[in-house]
């Protein structure tokens, strides 16, 4: 039963494999270039398992100690998981002990496959979903670890390599821009953050920015109640 589910799941994860190895490696390599041991990207990719937040955590680790910032930032950056979770309430039903792992490993990519793909006839749904999540996590953790290990042997001027994080977010921004007809939420996030940054400075703008974003989004919902989905 397990082999059958694994065989059915594997082809769906192949495109993710390439992307995760590439991004995971650049994440691991970046951490190594900032002086962290490979254990950090390995464990962070295993336990956080949310790409953008892992990049952000590098910054947190390099600045002053503010664990509450980390917590709230993770809530905000990963708020999309709430939405994913709400859409997966039905699908993850009756999957037994695997349900906890499916929720733990619910990254954007696993979620998108889970949304789009149904297990073929005769394949157990729980194991099928489980292997998609597991394979994706294996790609990501391997990529991050491998990238950091490469950082020990390959040496070149890495000045500016941290821009990979900005590049990732810009491309994510462009992709969601294409995918959504309404651009107000994206622009709200962009301008509320910029305004808070200019008003409060780089070290203190995160919480005001998050509060402002939630406030603006709530106000714009009240103004146009019919627009809420």
């Amino acid at each position, binding site marked *: 039963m397990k082999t059958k589910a694994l065989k059915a799941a594997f082809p769906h994860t192949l495109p993710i494999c390439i992307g995760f190895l590439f991004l995971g490696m650049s994440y691991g390599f970046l951490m190594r270039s900032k002086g962290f041991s490979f254990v950090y990207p390995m464990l962070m990719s295993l336990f956080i398992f949310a790409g953008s937040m892992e990049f952000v955590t590098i910054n947190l*680790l390099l600045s002053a100690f503010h664990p509450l910032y980390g*917590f709230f930032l993770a809530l905000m950056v990963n708020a999309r998981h709430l939405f994913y979770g709400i859409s997966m309430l039905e699908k993850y039903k009756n999957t037994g002990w695997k349900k906890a792992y499916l929720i733990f490993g619910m990254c954007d990519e696993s979620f998108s496959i889970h949304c789009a793909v149904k297990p073929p006839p005769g394949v157990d749904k729980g194991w099928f979903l489980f292997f998609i999540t597991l394979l994706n996590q294996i790609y990501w953790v391997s990529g991050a670890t491998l990238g950091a290990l490469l950082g020990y042997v390959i040496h070149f001027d890495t000045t500016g390599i941290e821009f990979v994080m900005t590049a990732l*977010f810009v491309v*994510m921004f462009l992709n969601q821009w294409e995918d*959504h007809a309404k651009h107000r939420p994206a622009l709200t996030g962009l301008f509320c953050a910029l305004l808070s940054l200019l008003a409060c400075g780089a070290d203190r703008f995160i919480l005001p920015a998050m509060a402002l974003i939630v406030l603006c989004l*709530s106000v714009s919902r009240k103004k146009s109640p019919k627009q809420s989905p």
Partner: protein
Amino acid sequence: MTTPQRILTILSVVLGTMLTRFLPFLLFPEGKTPPKYISYLGSVLPCAAIGFLVIYSLKDAVFSAFHGLPEILSILLIALLHRWRKNTLLSIGAGTVFYMYLAQTWFL
């Protein structure tokens, strides 16, 4: 930051991340539908968070010697390349290499 502080920071991030993943399943077990306001936030926050992240990743560049000029040039290249080829990995790779070139040659 000391190692225990690093571990605490990572744990707080893990906790925040896991809360976003487990909360819906804890709040709405078996068929309970979430309130409209929560579903609304769930539908608009993802896009807003990406906009926030773009600014977050530029937070130090704005106040640097060049006020974000190399960053803006690289973002322009990414936007053009992404419009043209729509290849996520190509856009990220080329944008990063271009920025590294700028940061190591023209914008020292």
